[in-house]
C-alpha cells in the first residue's frame, strides 16, 4: 500500500473532527494533492453506496454519523 493509498483510505471514512465552527476536513485529506482528493471523492461515492446497501434503513456512514449527532442532542 502506497502512502497516497493510505491517506485516501483514511479520508474515505465518514469520521470528521469537530471544531468550534463545525466539522473540519479529515487530517489525511489535507495531506493529499488535488488528484488524491478527487480520488477520495470518487471512492467515497462508492463506499457510501456499499454502506447504504448494507444498512437496514438504507443509511450510509455519513447518514448514520449525522443521525447519531441529532439523536444525541
Amino acid at each position, binding site marked *: *500500500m502506497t502512502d497516497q*493509498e*493510505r491517506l485516501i*483510505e*483514511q*479520508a*474515505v*471514512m*465518514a*469520521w*470528521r*473532527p469537530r471544531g468550534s465552527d*463545525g*466539522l*473540519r*476536513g*479529515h487530517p489525511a*485529506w*489535507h495531506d493529499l494533492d*488535488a*488528484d488524491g*482528493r*478527487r480520488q*477520495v*471523492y*470518487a*471512492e*467515497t*461515492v*462508492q*463506499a*457510501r*453506496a*456499499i*454502506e*447504504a*446497501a*448494507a*444498512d437496514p*434503513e*438504507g*443509511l*450510509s*456512514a*455519513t*447518514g*448514520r*454519523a*449525522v*443521525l*447519531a*449527532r*441529532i*439523536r444525541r442532542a
Partner: protein
Amino acid sequence: MADLDLHLEAIAAGDPDAFARWVVGAEPRVRASLSSFAAQVDTEAVVQETLLRMWQVAPRVKTDGKGDSLLRLAIRSARNLAIDHLRRARTRPTEIEAIERREWVDPAPPDPLLRRLIHACLEKLPGKPRAAITARLTASGARPDVVLCDEVGMTLNTFLVNVRRARLAVAKCLEAGGAKLPEVPR
C-alpha cells in the same frame, strides 16, 4: 425520483426517523452537487454539516410547489458552505467562479441488486478484511480509524490495508453478481 418533501412535515415536527428517510434520498444528491469542489474542499465534512443544518432549519422551510424544497435548500447551502471554505483558503475569485459554474450530474437511484448481494459479498471476505470493514460499518463515522484499529487488534497500517482489500473485494463481488456501483464522471 420521489419528491422528498413528503417527509418534510414530520421532519419539521422533530421526527428523526423521518429525517433519516429524507437523508437516504438527499445525501447522494447533495454530495453530487459538490463534485466540482472535490479537489479543494473536503466534501464529506460539507455534506455532514449541511445535513445537520437542514435538520435545524426544516421547521422554517416553506414548500413552493416545485417539489424537493428541503433538498434544493440543502444543495444551495452545501455549495455556499463549500465556497466559504474556498474563500477561507484564499482561493482566487476567478477560480471560485470557474468551480461554481461547472455543472453536476444528479446520481441515478441505487441499484436494488446492491442490497440483495451486499451481505453475501461481505460474508465471503476472509477474516481480517471482514473484521476491518465491519468495524468501519459499525462505527458509522463516530470514531476515527486510530480507535477502530485498536478495537480489532490491528495496527493502523494493517487496518487500512485490510479495509482497502475488503472494499475492493466487495466491489468486485457486487459487480460479478451484476450490481452496478455508482460511477463518478471525471
